[in-house]
């Protein structure tokens, strides 16, 4: 069972449930829930949790479900943050770095090509390294930032999970980074929206394999 967190202001939770249901079972997890028993993986979806007040993701970090999420991640449970969910995971220090306002100061909403850089994560296991997938982005605060020495460390550890293909970086992200993982690879976050790329009818089903990978992670002890 894949759980999809829902904060006040989330808006992509239903698409995330739909994407997860393409490969298994899924249900919504309200932000006040603190019992994650029975969940095999958790998705923190996109949207504008708590109105993005103060900084994107800053308030959601303190939701009751986030403590349970940190425990779940600490036990090796697979966690995927998409867009606002990525921002939340960075604010909660479950992932390194931060997201800054887009370089062009505009909200960007377009289809981009992204390459899979590391297959050592719960969301990319079994995928071919360098595989190019087409997924939409839609965000205002998506410019990935970390200090240069931290970026070097992430690259050396294989924690850069996704990169925008050359010429596709929509927001000025450092080193074209679109998504990163934690050191153990069980927490992954990315700005593009794989949950909107699971059906050819809406432009691309390139991300189906990624959700299949997430759904097939062995249960954490």
């Amino acid at each position, binding site marked *: 069972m894949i759980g999809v967190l829902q904060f006040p202001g989330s808006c992509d939770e239903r698409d995330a449930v739909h994407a997860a249901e393409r490969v298994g079972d899924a249900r919504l997890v309200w932000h006040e829930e603190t019992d994650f028993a029975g969940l095999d993986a958790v998705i923190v979806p996109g949207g504008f949790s708590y109105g993005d007040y*103060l*900084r994107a993701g*800053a308030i959601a970090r*303190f939701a009751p479900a986030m403590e349970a999420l940190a425990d779940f991640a600490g036990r090796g449970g697979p966690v995927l943050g998409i867009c606002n969910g990525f921002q939340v995971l960075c*604010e909660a220090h479950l992932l390194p*770095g*931060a997201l*800054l*306002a*887009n*370089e*062009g*100061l505009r909200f960007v909403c377009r289809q981009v090509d992204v390459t899979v850089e590391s297959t050592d994560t719960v969301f990319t296991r079994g995928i071919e390294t360098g595989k190019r997938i087409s997924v939409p982005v839609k965000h205002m605060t998506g*410019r990935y*930032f*970390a*200090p240069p020495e931290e970026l070097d460390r992430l690259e050396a550890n294989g924690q850069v999970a996704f990169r925008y293909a050359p010429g596709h970086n929509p927001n*000025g992200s450092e080193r074209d980074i679109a998504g990163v993982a934690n050191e153990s690879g069980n927490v992954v976050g990315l700005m593009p929206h794989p949950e909107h790329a699971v059906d050819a009818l809406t432009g691309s089903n390139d991300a189906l394999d990624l959700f299949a990978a997430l759904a097939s992670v062995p249960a954490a002890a």
Partner: protein
Amino acid sequence: MKARVLIRPKEGLPDPQGKAVERALPALGFDGVSHVRVGRMVELEAADEAELKSLCEQLLANPLIEDFEVEKL
């Protein structure tokens, strides 16, 4: 105590808001304005002054990308 917290992008980090403001000024005839940076200001009343730094680090600012200063009112 009353306090005002000023939060701004860390020195050297991109600040597209500041840049946009800077670029808009010459159109109004204000030449010679540079190094514009846009941040946030939070006013609050705190029962325990000693907690201010910690609450700034944990919530009001993200120390990875922002600097803050606390001004007592």
